[in-house]
Structure formats: C-alpha cells, structure tokens
C-alpha cells in the first residue's frame, strides 16, 4: 500500500522538506513538502530525483571483514564484526593510549548519530581525535562567526533572502549548490527588480545570471576586496557610527588597516575595475538592508577565517545585522553541517557550541555525562589527522558516512595513509565509495529514507528525518552502530563503571543532547520530537516553554561575547598559498556541478543526473586553449606539485584566462588516477584547519594516448562498473559515468599509449556480455582497432570501441534516444563523428533534467524566436524544479543590459 512520509532531503544545507511516497519496502517518488518553511514544496534537480538514486546494487548490505591487508574482505555477522572492532580498538587504546585512535565522521550524519560518536570518542575512548568532513566545508565559517559574533550561530533566516534590498553572494554558486534558495531569490527579484544582487566569483557561474554586478575577482583575493569595500563605506560615511560605538569593539584598528585598501590598490589585486568596486560599495552602503551569502569560495581557503571575518565586518560597520533582510548568512554545504557544529563534531569543539580547549566547557560536559573528565589533549583536525595516520601515530581509524579517499586534498598522501593504517573501519551505506576499498572492516549503514532523527539546516532550523522503508540487507542506523560499539568498548576499557550508552532510540540521544544546549547560544532544550511533530521544523534558539523558534539572532544587538559586543577582526590580505609560476602557470579552481552532489556515492548511481554533464573534464578559457595549442575535447595531463591527472579539456568562456576548473565530484572511481583531489593542496587556514581546496597551481600539457576506448553497456551497472573499473586501472586515462534515464547505461571513455592485448579485450567483452551473442564486429589487429556493438530489437545494448572511437558521441545519442539502428547498421562501426547525412554532434547535454529537454532543442526554439515563457509552454523546460532556469536565461538573448562582469 502506498503511503507518504514527511522527511528532509539528504543533500545540501538548505534542508528542504520532502514527502516520500513509498510502500512497505520501496520508495516510489519524492515531492517537495509544501509545509516545510525551507522550500515550501520546491525541490531542485537533485532532490526531486532522490527516489532514482541509491541503486541497491551499490549498497553495502552485510558486515565484511578482512584479517590482513592483502586479503579480500569476506562477509561476517554483526556480532563478530563489532566484537573484532572493539577488541582491536580496545587493545590499541590499552597499548598506545586513547590518542592512537581516531574517528572521522560526516556532515551527512544526523544529529543523533553525531552525538553518539562524540560521546563515544570523548567519554568512552577519551580522545579529542574526532573530526568531521565539515572541516573541509564549514570550519572557516565557524571561526568567522565565533571570532566576530561570539558564537557559531548564523543569525539569519531564509526569508531574509526575500526581504533584503541588497544581496552579496560571494564564493557561492548558489544556483547549483543551493538551488531552492536561488529559486526563492529569483522569485523575489522578479517581484522587486530594484533588489540589488552582487555576485563575487572568479568564474562567471550560473548564479551570475541573476546578478546586477558580477565581480570576477582573482582567486583568493576576497579579503582585499572586502577591505576595499569597507574602506569606501567608511570614506562615504555609509557606516553606522552608533552601532559601531555601542555594540562592537576593535573598529579603530580595522579602520586604519582598511585605509590602505584604496580602490585602485584593491582593483589591482582583485583584477577588477575600481569603478565597479565603488558601484558595489554604493549598493551596499545605500541599501536599507544588506544580506551576504557565502559558501566554499570563502571557506575552503588558507585565509578562510580572515575572509569570513572581513565579510562580517561589513555587516557590523553598517549595522546590517539582526534586522530583517540583513546579516551575514553562511550557506552550509551538507544537510547537517550545523548539527555537527551543535554536537561538537570537530576535534576542537564539544557539544552545545563548547570548546574542547576550554576547561570549564569540558567540566560541564563531563558533569552532564557523569564521567570524571574529558580529555584535555587537543584533537587532530582532518588534515593533521590523516597525516598522523600516515606517520603511524593513529593505529585504528573509524570513518563514518564520508569518503576521504575522494574528498580530502592531496589524495596520494591520504591513500597512502589509509593503506598503511593497521585497522580501518568504514561505516558506509554505499559499498562503491573509494574509501571502502581501504576498509578492513566494512559496516553497512542505513541511508536516507531509512533513517530516523533530526538535522539542522543553514537557517538553524531543526527538521525531522523519518524513515519510510527498512534498510536493505543487514544495514543498521549510524547511531545504533556507534552505540553498539561504545557499549562493547565500555566493557573492555571501563568494566567497573556503569554504561553511559543506554540509548535504544534516536530520540533518547536527542533528548540527552538537547540538555547540553541549555543556556547556550543555541539553546534548544525546549525542543522535542513531539514538538517537532506537532509544530513542524523549528529554528533555534527554542527555549523550554517556547511555542515557536527564533527567526533572527541579535535583534537585541547583544552578542554572546564576554562584553556583549561584536568584534571587528583586522586581518591583512594574504595571497593564496600557491601562486602562478612558470612551472605551474594556471590556477585550478574546484566546485560543483548542478546535478551531482559531493563524492557522488548517491547521485552517481542515478543515470539521469549525468545528463547535464556526463564526464570529468577540465575547463579552460578558450584563449588559454588556443595559447596552449589544444583543442576542445583533447586529452591533457594536468600536473600540480602533488599529482597528475589525465582528462579532456573543454572550452568554457565563463572562466577567466589563467584559470582552470574541475568539478569537485570526480573521484577515483569515476576518474582513474585518484580523481580531482590528487591535484588539490592540503595547506590550511591556521585558525579553522580548513584546507585550500579551491586553489592549486597547475600546468596543462597535451598527452598522446593514441589507443582510445569507448564503452557503453546497459544493465547490471554497478557490478559492471566495479569490475570494469579494476580492468581499466592500468590505462593512462579512464573516465566512467552513467547515461540515460529509464534504462541506464554505463559509459567508459579511456585511452592509453599502448594497446591492451586480446586477453584484456576478451575480459572486457565477457563483462559486457559481448562474448556469446551475435554482434557487429570490426577488427584491424595490425592497428589494434577492435570494435563491437550489440544490438537487440534494433536498439543498441552495448558498444565497445577500441583503437578508434570517433562515433562515440552520436552512438550515445542514438542509444539514448532509443532510435532504431536499422537504417544505420552499416555505419555503426565506421570512424564517423556523425551518422551519414548528419553533421557532427557532441553528446546531447540535458539542460532540463526533470522534463528531459536538451540544449539543442532549447537553442533551436530560441533561434525560432521563443522567449522564456514560450519555452516553458512549448518544451516544458524549467517548469518543474527550475534548477535549469539560470542556464536557459543564459541562452536567451539579454533583454536588458546584462550584468557587468568586471
């Protein structure tokens, strides 16, 4: 019987409410929850396809254990698995002390999971070696908020986006990363065109389509820009002297610092027009309200904390904080980054926005937990933690719900560390992640749609996550695994003491945790599952007895500092760690694709989500492509000081000359050679510990890999993916992706200097099911050209081209459109870049993924004179989730003067 369960989306920090349509064991559909105040029924291209993700074949279903590094894991039962884990951890702690083990957890865990892990690490193990992937994501914002405002509390609400007169979107491609908020902004802007939108980004992203001004600054120059703006605000007297005098401290030092940041000086650093800087300062200075939104462009930086502080300075100087439409509003990248911060899931934090380095905070928590003391030795942050693993200091590592072998910078060292670590536990829903390969013990975890608990979104709103179906196989909830392990470890390490892990439901974890928020800035001790069920999602603070949450912080202009005043932070501008040089003349930027999320363990299972971008590529400005004498689509070797990667280059006019871009999603599973993060650098912000994932100096060289391979195969995708991925490990270039919608296929593009032998081809054909059925076959063994196509019912079912792959793009299109091969059969194996009688076509890019409308159809309709409304009416594009609207606008001729890129 079909039922509907209200829950929360598991992707970005917007935290949209979803209604899951399901029966007893299958999720059939997902729609936006009209009652949820984050999205009011909207969903983006990723959220609306949640039910198409999570291919059961990609899931971890049973505990798997290996007793030696060289061995393969084999299935075991939960009791054996957990007993083994407890024994190894217990022995390691006994032999080498509690700091010889570590936990690396995730912003995708629920608050209850987080809390269980924190208590496990600090109360049972007695270590602060627990860090979260939020270190790669939000830790600079945490420092920024805490330094300037006294607590890690974003003061704003989503409704400020609608209410603000002037928005500064800096270091955020909100159109891709937080699409539902961007929809809200689009709508507000269309209702009030006077609303000013400034976008600061080295790239001209889709977000710029809504901007009045786009400042295309040089990478990493944000602090100079923000100081330059403040300097102009002061000069023009667009500051709030009274607010500064009454509610802040440190202005004088800052004022003298920013005086050096004259418009000309700043324009020189940032590579922008000084007039544009003045224009932006005027917009900000004269607007009645001012909201700033930011994300990884600010945070993932060796100066991330300084950037955050410099931005908050603008709000403090103008007094634009704590009021409707105003405030510094950090957009979180993960669904529960906020929950992690609340529960103390960075090594330096403790539950309830406390600090691990603060003795009073430690004592409060120890007291609450009924234990003697919390560890006082400082814990390791992510980068340091993996370095300690590599150096053998950490001997047992527990990884939950995150994929460091994809997401951490300088992958070569990370993989070395994971391979060397004597005992690696990976607690994970998807057996396909890169990190699972390093697991000595793999523990299957339940995932979205199966879990119960809470998450907190970017606007401090706590929402319920509810299970709709049971977890597959023997997968268990993350909190339950943590608690089981904790109880076993307690028996080993503290046999004489009573257990502090009497949790049998997520609710008991929540109830214990909320007590730790009491009297803190985030106080939601008044909240309960019952209240959340009754009132719906609520924003903290939510004090006992409250009837609703708190929309906006600091309306009373009292900040959670010792003196109640906010602080101006005066950091000087520092350049990015890696500058362009003759050896490494380009700066690599990383970021998001519209339809993928993070390491793709979930989105990477849904073929539909590859329709927009279907392979890993490095983008360059066309001028750089010309200068380097490359051509669009050519394979290149990208080299940074840490690693090399082979992938195709693609022209992108939205990039400035001298800059390159690779989406952050492509890990080693999808792109052989370790994925994008073999290139990125581990240099991190000294305050936040957040690595500078956004900038790495690189060089690009053409690479000659004459023997190319293309594969398309329908059916049994995950099993084929894993098996073929192993076979392709020896090739210099191998890029995997999915294609199609209802009948998905696995795509492989690969190349090598030397051809592989016939035994290799036979293995590939066996995996593709080409070995025992009638096929089309072409063989020129002398040139190592071998091609196969399997056709059933006049439709392509599998393609394997080796040594010559010119037809691959139109074969993909032919397959995807389900067209009959009857009239083309003679030419399917020909070295043609287009079918006979047609012009060469690249793979159809799907702009509107909900309605399946391609770039070429939209362009043709625009050429015939259609505007946005008629496109929507005729083609249906942009009428569902709206994630494609910025790109459709980009294709349309500009009605008015376009946003100036400066």
């Amino acid at each position, binding site marked *: 019987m079909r039922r509907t369960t209200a829950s929360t989306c598991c992707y970005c920090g917007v935290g949209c409410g979803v209604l899951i349509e399901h029966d007893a064991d299958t999720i059939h559909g997902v729609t936006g929850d009209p009652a949820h105040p984050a999205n009011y029924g909207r969903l983006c291209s990723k959220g609306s396809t949640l039910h198409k993700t999570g291919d059961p074949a990609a899931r971890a279903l049973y505990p798997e254990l290996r007793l030696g590094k060289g061995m393969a894991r084999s299935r075991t039962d939960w009791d054996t698995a957990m007993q083994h884990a407890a024994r190894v951890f217990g022995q390691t702690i006994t032999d080498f002390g509690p700091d010889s083990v570590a936990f690396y957890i995730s912003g995708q865990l629920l608050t209850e999971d987080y809390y269980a892990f924190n208590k496990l690490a600090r109360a049972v193990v007695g270590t602060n070696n627990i860090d979260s992937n939020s270190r790669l994501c939000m830790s600079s914002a945490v420092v920024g908020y805490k330094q300037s405002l006294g607590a890690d509390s974003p003061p704003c609400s989503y409704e400020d986006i609608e209410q603000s007169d002037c928005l500064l979107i800096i270091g955020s491609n909100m159109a891709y990363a937080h699409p539902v908020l961007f929809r809200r902004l689009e709508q507000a802007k269309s209702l009030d065109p006077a609303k000013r939108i400034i976008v600061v980004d080295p790239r001209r992203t889709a977000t710029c389509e809504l901007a009045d001004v786009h400042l295309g600054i040089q990478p990493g120059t944000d602090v100079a820009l923000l100081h330059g703006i403040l300097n102009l605000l002061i000069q023009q007297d667009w500051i709030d002297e009274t607010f500064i005098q009454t509610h802040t401290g440190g202005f004088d030092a800052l004022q003298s610092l920013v005086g050096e940041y004259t418009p000309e000086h700043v324009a020189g650093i940032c590579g922008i027009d000084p007039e544009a800087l003045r224009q932006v300062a005027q917009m900000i200075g004269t607007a009645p309200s001012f909201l700033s939104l930011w994300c990884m462009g600010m945070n993932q930086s060796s100066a991330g904390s300084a950037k955050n502080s410099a931005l908050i300075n603008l709000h403090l100087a103008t007094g634009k904080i704590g009021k409707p439409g105003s405030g510094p509003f950090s957009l979180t990248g993960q669904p529960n980054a906020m929950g992690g911060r609340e529960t103390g899931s960075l090594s330096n934090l403790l539950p309830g926005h406390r600090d691990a380095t603060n003795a009073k905070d430690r004592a409060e928590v120890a007291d609450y937990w009924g234990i003697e003391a919390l560890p006082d030795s400082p814990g390791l942050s992510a980068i340091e933690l993996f370095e300690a693993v590599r150096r053998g200091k950490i001997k047992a590592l527990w990884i939950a719900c995150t994929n460091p072998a994809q997401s951490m910078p300088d992958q070569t060292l990370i993989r070395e560390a994971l391979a060397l670590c004597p005992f690696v536990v990976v607690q994970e829903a998807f057996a396909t992640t890169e990190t699972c390969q390093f697991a000595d013990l793999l523990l299957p975890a339940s995932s979205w749609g199966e879990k119960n608990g809470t998450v907190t979104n970017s606007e401090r709103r706590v929402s319920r996550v509810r299970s709709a179906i049971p977890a597959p196989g023997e997968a268990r909830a993350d909190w339950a695994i943590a608690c089981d392990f904790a109880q076993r470890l307690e028996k080993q390490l503290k046999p004489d003491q009573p257990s502090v892990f009497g949790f049998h439901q997520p609710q008991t974890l929540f109830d214990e945790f909320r007590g730790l928020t009491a009297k803190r800035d985030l106080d939601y001790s008044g909240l309960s599952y019952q209240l959340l069920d009754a009132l719906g999602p609520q924003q903290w603070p939510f004090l006992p007895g409250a009837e609703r949450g708190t929309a906006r912080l600091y309306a009373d202009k009292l900040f959670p500092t010792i003196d109640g005043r906010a602080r101006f932070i005066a950091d000087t501008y520092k350049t990015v760690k890696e500058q362009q040089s003759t050896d490494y003349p380009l700066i690599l930027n990383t970021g998001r694709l519209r339809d993928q999320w993070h390491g793709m363990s979930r989105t990477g299972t849904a073929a539909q989500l590859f329709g927009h971008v279907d392979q890993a590529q490095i983008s360059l400005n066309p001028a750089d492509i010309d200068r380097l004498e490359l051509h669009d689509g050519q394979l290149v070797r990208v080299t940074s000081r840490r690693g090399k990667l082979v992938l195709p280059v693609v022209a992108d006019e939205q990039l400035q000359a001298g800059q390159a871009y690779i989406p952050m999603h492509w890990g080693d599973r999808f792109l052989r050679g370790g994925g994008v993060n073999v290139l990125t650098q581990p240099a991190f912000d000294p305050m936040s510990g957040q690595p500078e994932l956004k900038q790495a100096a690189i060089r690009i060289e053409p690479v000659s890999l004459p023997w190319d391979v293309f594969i398309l195969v329908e059916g049994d995708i995950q099993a084929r993916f894993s098996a073929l991925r192993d076979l392709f490990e020896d090739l210099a270039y191998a890029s995997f992706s999915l294609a199609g919608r209802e009948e998905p296929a696995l795509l492989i593009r690969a190349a090598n200097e030397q051809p592989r032998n016939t035994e290799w081809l036979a293995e590939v054909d066996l995996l593709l099911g080409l070995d025992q059925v009638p096929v089309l*076959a*072409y*063989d020129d*063994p*002398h040139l190592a050209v071998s091609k196969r196509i399997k056709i059933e019912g006049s439709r392509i079912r599998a393609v394997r081209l080796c040594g*010559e792959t010119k037809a691959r793009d139109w074969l993909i299109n032919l397959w995807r459109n389900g067209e009959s091969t009857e009239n083309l059969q003679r030419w399917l194996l*020909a*070295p043609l870049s287009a079918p006979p009688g047609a012009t060469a076509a690249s793979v159809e890019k799907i702009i509107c993924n909900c309605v399946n409308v391609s770039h070429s159809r939209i362009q043709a309709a625009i050429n015939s004179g259609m505007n946005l409304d008629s496109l929507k009416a005729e083609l249906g594009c942009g009428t569902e989730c709206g994630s494609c609207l910025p790109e459709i606008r980009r294709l349309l001729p500009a009605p008015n003067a376009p946003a100036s890129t400066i």
Partner: protein
Amino acid sequence: MQKLKLVMVGNGMAGVRTLEELIKLAPDMYDITVFGAEPHPNYNRIMLSPVLAGEQSFEDIILNDLDWYRDNGVTLHTGRRVVNIDRRRRLVTADDGTEAGYDRLLLATGSNPFMPPIPGNDLAGVIGYRDIADTRMMVGTARTRSHAVVIGGGLLGLEAANGLNMRGMNVTVVHIGKGLLDRQLDLTAAQLLQSSLEQRGIRFLLPQFTSELIDDGKGRVAAVRFKDGSEIRADLVVMAAGVRPRTELAQSAGLACERGILVSDTMQTYDPKIYAIGECANHRGIAYGLVAPLFEQARVCANHLAMLGYGRYQGSVTATKLKVTGIDLFSTGDFGASENCEAITLSDQLTGSYRKLVIQDDILIGACLFGDTADATWYLELIKERRNIRKIRDALMFGKTVCHNIISDTNSQATPSEVGIAA
C-alpha cells in the same frame, strides 16, 4: 578492296565480344566466319545458373541472336565442330567437312569440365556443367528424379546445387576443402555462405573425398561412395571439380600449349596469324575463367586484329560473384592473409554479412565480401590501381562514400587520389 578473311573457332562470349569490338573499330576490314559446336547463337554462359534455377529462360540469356550475325555480315556455322587447322593453307575444316580459309584465325574454344578419374564417372546421370545442354539435362532429370549430388564446392558447383535445389531436388554438395569456395573465400565467409545455403535446404559434406560412383545395374548412377566407406544416394551427379582449357585442336595444329594455348600480350599464339582468347588461352601462365578478364582480352585482341596494335593485355585482377539469388558474395585478389599481409574484418552477425580486406604495404590486395557487396567495384578499383590507402584505412571497410567524407572532413592536405578516392 578485297576484305581479309577472319575465322573464329568457338561461338562463346569471349570470341563474340572480340568480334563486336572489332566491328566497332574496323567494320569493313574482315569477312568473318564463325564455327560454333553448339546449335545456338552466342548466349550468356554466366547466366546458365538462373536458367537452371528457373529464374530466366534460355531466350533471356541469348546475347547475340541470329539477326546480329546477319546484320553484321558474319557467317555463322552452328552445330559444327572444327576438327582441323591447316596452317600452311590457312584453312579450317569442320566435322561435317565445311571448310573456311582464313587470313586471321581466332581460337575461342573455351574449356571442358574436369571429370575426376574415378570409377563410374562415365555412367548415365553423371555430367559436367558447361552449357545449355547440360542445363537442360539437369532440368529434365529434376522432373523425374529426386537425389542430386554435386561434386565440388566451387562457384559452378554451388550454382548448380542451388539450381537443382530450386528445381525441387534433394541436393548434397561434396567438397574436398574445409570451406566452400576455398579459392575465393576465407573460412569465416565460407561458413556464412554454407549456413545460408543450408537454410535453403542444401546439404554439405566437407571435407569429403569421392572414391566411386555406383552403377544401378543399368548403367545409370545410383549412389556416390566416399573414401571413408560411406555412401549417399544419387540419381544425378554433377561434376563441378574445375575446368580444363580445350586445346586439342590447337595442339594438333602445332601451336604451343601448356594448360591453355600460350598467347602473347596481344593475344597471339606462336603463329602470329592465329589468336587465342578466353578460357582456352594461357596468358602469362593464367587461363582465366571469369568473364571480366576475357572481355579485357577481347578488347586487346580486337585492337590488334584491327591493325591498330597499341593495345596490350597485361593480365587481370579477377573478382568473383556467386550467381545465387539472395546471396551477395564478392571476392577478389589475395585474401589468404599470408605473413606480410594485414587483414581487416567487419562482420554483422545479426544479418550474416561479413567483409574482409587484406592490405600489404598500405595497398589493398584482397577483398572478400559476403552479404553486402555494395562497394565491390570500388575495392576492385583500389586493388587494380594499387592506390595507397594508409590515410583512409580506418574507413576503408565502410565504402567509398564514408572514405570520401573522412577525407573532406579531416584531411585537407591529402588529395583524394593520394588516398584512394577517384577524384
């Protein structure tokens, strides 16, 4: 001015084509006399198979009817076999005593089917497959008898088998090689061909060696016995084990013969007044059996007879087509893929089509097409003209149009002729 006398012995396709060419070049140079052993004007021997299969009638395949001979002033003696050449007197004599003097003599005596020397090869119901009489005999037998055995899985044998099969007989083909048409096809194509013929109901025994044809006691064949001792029923046995040039007449006239009448590049024998052409002639060691080279010989021979003499025959690249309706097969050149050769193959296992191209030193030297012969003539052209195909190698398999597109797409530096495309 008195015309010269040209006598032609043999009234087949090669000879008459020579006359046609000659009449075009020099309509008034010769008085022409033709002796034909068969009682018919020139017909298209290649099309005997469709006649056997019942797809065409004999009238359909006549190339030059009696009117043609009359209109062109050619004296035709049908049903008369020339039995003697008196080279000193320049006179030929036919079996009925008819004589004709010549200034030039053209021997176009063709070939005989090879009858393997096995016991019983002279029984009734055992025939070769050469002319319309054989064809009619087979058609007649098919009306009254049911079991036919064709010995030889070459072109002629398969065409005979197909024809008899279509006439309703139970047909078995016996072949000594591993694959059918082993001079024309590789094993893959041979197997495709075999299964396609099997689908039509023809049975195959191969490799299999015939040891004896069994008498039914009344002088007619009743069965075929093999070396392994097995036997199959046979009411009709068609010997299709190859042909032998007819050289008896030339030999008796003292002309040099060795597996054919030896001729020069102008198609002249040792006696310069005597020419030989067609299946009876051995040019540079080869006696051609296919029609295309014979027509090339005809052109050279006519040129010389017309006293122009600038034509030279330098041998032909031959190509094979099987005349079995619904089976497209083409083969030419060397496709055995010997050591220095590189073979490219394309097969569509769904439709049963197959192509193999053989390349040596960037030159196409062989092609074997089964199922889809659309580009046959182009490949033949490439082979004959020995064009360098290096730059279109990847596309070669997909035919002229695709290669042309590839060239115009990607290779502006190479001119079409350089890469094997006729401009």
